[in-house]
């Protein structure tokens, strides 16, 4: 009897601890969030803002680790091939999750089928901007002008695989001028410089980088490729209003984990991300960066996965065919 009691107690204890593990001990140690770009870049800043608050909810520190390389694919590959236990996650963006499969033929991960999406952390609107003395006055004229003079114009971007390259390649694909002269820069800062000084005719870039120059009238913005106008530049029409409704693209950053990460961990991470995005301080810091806060749907794994798939489908044909 005594033995039986002991056995029962032991199995009960086991059941309890086992049960407890299944219900809520994650996380028991610090979590690594891999950021596939150098510290200080836009993705890194968003990762640090969000992870700081998520650490509070989870009760364990999220350590941001910068693993840069190959347009962000090195770091994402490392994160997604690590043990799926919820202790290694990654913050990637439009490029690493939606564009990479079509951009990098030898990609070592599959963001569509081989990844556990967690949620979107924020979107950044894309603007079509041009040097201030470029002839066309609005987007309609610009479209006609580009189609009529594809050999005369120069477009700037921040290197193959970058957001500016990805989004502008999509634009050129839609306008039927995929071969239009593209000038590569190391980063959008120098590209913008040459746009201001008129060496280059136009580019597509995130609102954060160009807003200041648009406000200062150093360059002109034809349209914003989002569903709604941005409070940062209320005078710039959306592509829908301005006559290019199909050109809808946003640069976004979101969190993902390796495929097979336990549901408990996924749920807790989703919850922590949601709480972080609802926090007023976090929200303000993200809005200051020009971020569009993700919808309730996009904060869920299913919603984020759908976004990744949607943008991948949109981008793949043009990117795969693009002259690189």
């Amino acid at each position, binding site marked *: 009897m005594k033995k039986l009691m002991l056995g029962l107690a032991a199995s009960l204890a086991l059941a309890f601890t086992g049960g407890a593990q299944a219900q809520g001990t994650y996380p028991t140690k610090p979590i690594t969030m891999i950021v596939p770009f150098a510290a200080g870049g836009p993705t890194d800043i968003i990762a640090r803002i969000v992870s700081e608050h998520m650490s509070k909810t989870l009760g364990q520190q999220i350590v941001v680790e910068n693993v840069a*390389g190959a347009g962000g694919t090195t770091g994402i590959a490392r994160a997604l091939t690590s043990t799926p236990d919820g202790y290694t996650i990654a913050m990637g963006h439009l490029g690493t999750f939606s564009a990479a499969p079509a951009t990098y033929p030898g990609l070592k991960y599959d963001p569509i089928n081989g990844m556990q999406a967690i949620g979107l952390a924020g979107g950044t609107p894309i603007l079509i901007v041009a040097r201030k003395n470029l002839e066309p006055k609005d987007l309609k004229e610009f479209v006609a002008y580009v189609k009529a003079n594809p050999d005369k114009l120069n477009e700037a971007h921040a290197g193959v695989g970058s957001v500016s390259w990805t989004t502008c390649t999509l634009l050129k694909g839609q306008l039927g001028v995929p071969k239009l002269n593209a000038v590569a820069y190391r980063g959008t800062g120098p590209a913008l410089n040459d746009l201001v000084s008129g060496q280059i005719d136009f580019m597509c870039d995130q609102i954060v980088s160009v807003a200041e120059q648009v406000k200062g009238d150093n360059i002109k913005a034809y349209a914003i490729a989002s569903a709604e106008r941005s409070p940062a530049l209320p005078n710039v029409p959306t592509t829908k209003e301005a006559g290019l409704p199909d050109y809808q693209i946003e640069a976004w950053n979101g969190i993902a984990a390796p495929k097979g990460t336990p549901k408990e961990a996924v749920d807790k991470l989703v919850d922590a991300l949601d709480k972080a995005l609802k926090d007023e301080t976090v929200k303000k810091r993200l809005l200051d960066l020009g971020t569009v806060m993700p919808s309730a749907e996009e904060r869920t794994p299913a919603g984020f996965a759908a976004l990744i798939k949607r943008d991948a489908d949109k981008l793949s044909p043009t990117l795969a065919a693009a002259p690189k």
Partner: protein
Amino acid sequence: MSEMISHLTLGFGVALTLQNLALAFVGCLVGTLIGVLPGVGPIATIAMLLPITFGLDPVGALIMLAGIYYGAQYGGSTTAILVNIPGEATSVVTTLDGHQMAKQGRAGVALGTAALGSFFAGCVATVVIAALGAPLTRLALLFGPAEYFSLMVMGLCFAVVLARGSILKAFCMIMLGLLLSTVGTDLETGQERMTFGFPPLSDGIDFAVLAMGVFGFAEVLRNLENPETRDVVKAKIGRLLPDWNDIKQSINPVLRGTGIGAILGILPGNGAVLGPFASYTIEKKIAKDPSRFGRGAIEGVAGPESANNAGAQTAFIPLLTLGIPPNAVMALMVGAMTIHGIIPGPQVMTKNPELFWGMIASMWIGNLMLLVINLPLVGLWVKLLQVPYRLMFPAILIFCCIGIYSVNNQPVDVAFTALFGLFGYILIKLGFEPAPMLLGFVLGKLMEEKLRQALIISRGSFMTFVERPISAGLLVVSVIVLTIALMPAMSKKRDEVFTE
């Protein structure tokens, strides 16, 4: 003028926060600490200490780096005076009279004069940068890819001409640097180049890895083969502050040195290195009794040290306004800025004015701090000079390894650093200066980018470089510089300057 004052006010507002003051202080202190080690010059010091700034915000990091830079410069002078080992080319001149003064028991005065002269030069140079920064940045808007490319060609021509040793070797090193910079993913096409299918190379060779290997590790290796006998001055350090007589003797050399250094420092292609040599030559020429030089003449310390510091600072001008590093130290600064997400160039001043002016203000603060913290600590530095190699070198190496690992958290980076260390050692043994290589490496990426941009915009026509007047002018200057340097009469003179 009022614009300049308001800018400087903004800058001092940034630099005088408690955090940034502390960072400048720590930077100066640590910079001196490493820079004072024999054989370790400013480049090696900055390369080694770069990683400790990674956790900071960009403004703080650059302020600290600037502090490290001045600290290392000053530390180098201390070693030059006390041990007769110059940390780098620019303090070679300081050993001539500085060490002699030390042997005569006037080490303190030599150190004090160097510090005071440097401080004065630093003050002047700060004002020069503040005054020239804004107009030069506006000028930068006239620069398109073609102009930038030609400007860098000119910079590299100067770098070849001004490098120590043979012109051919310097040229080879710059070419090697340019070649190394092409490893990695092609910017225009996304193709991998010279990576041998090895993933860690797909983003190119990391700047910090190359710099720390070739300068940090290789310096340690090179120093290991020297026997551990150091000519540390046995005589007393003596009083630090120069007396009235010393001041009277040094004041004019300091003024002249500052002027010469400040002007030469702005030149692309390491003009700063010429400052101390030029100043020393001039002081010796105009002295009533030139034979005193080389035997502990205070003018021979005051002038070159001022020129050195003025040039070290005005060398920031091409970097901050055009984004083009004029020498290897500034190339390191580019690396540091890029790591912090700032791309050096004219946009820095408009986009991050607090960074731009904060850094300029912190230059002056850094100079002041050196004066305040280093003079009382001279005794400590002397002790440090006596630390045996067997303790010092393992510590340096471990520190470097941790630092390099922390950049990207990639173990392979540490292996690469070790490899470059060996490579750098071989270069030194064969008489090749690694500094031009580093400059070539940093400029290489920029040059390729600008060359291809210019050619894409011109639809493939090379005439764009000659048709655009500014670009053509810069190329003409490059040709003239090279021709003059290669003329037999000049190259003989050049050898004299560098051997003296």
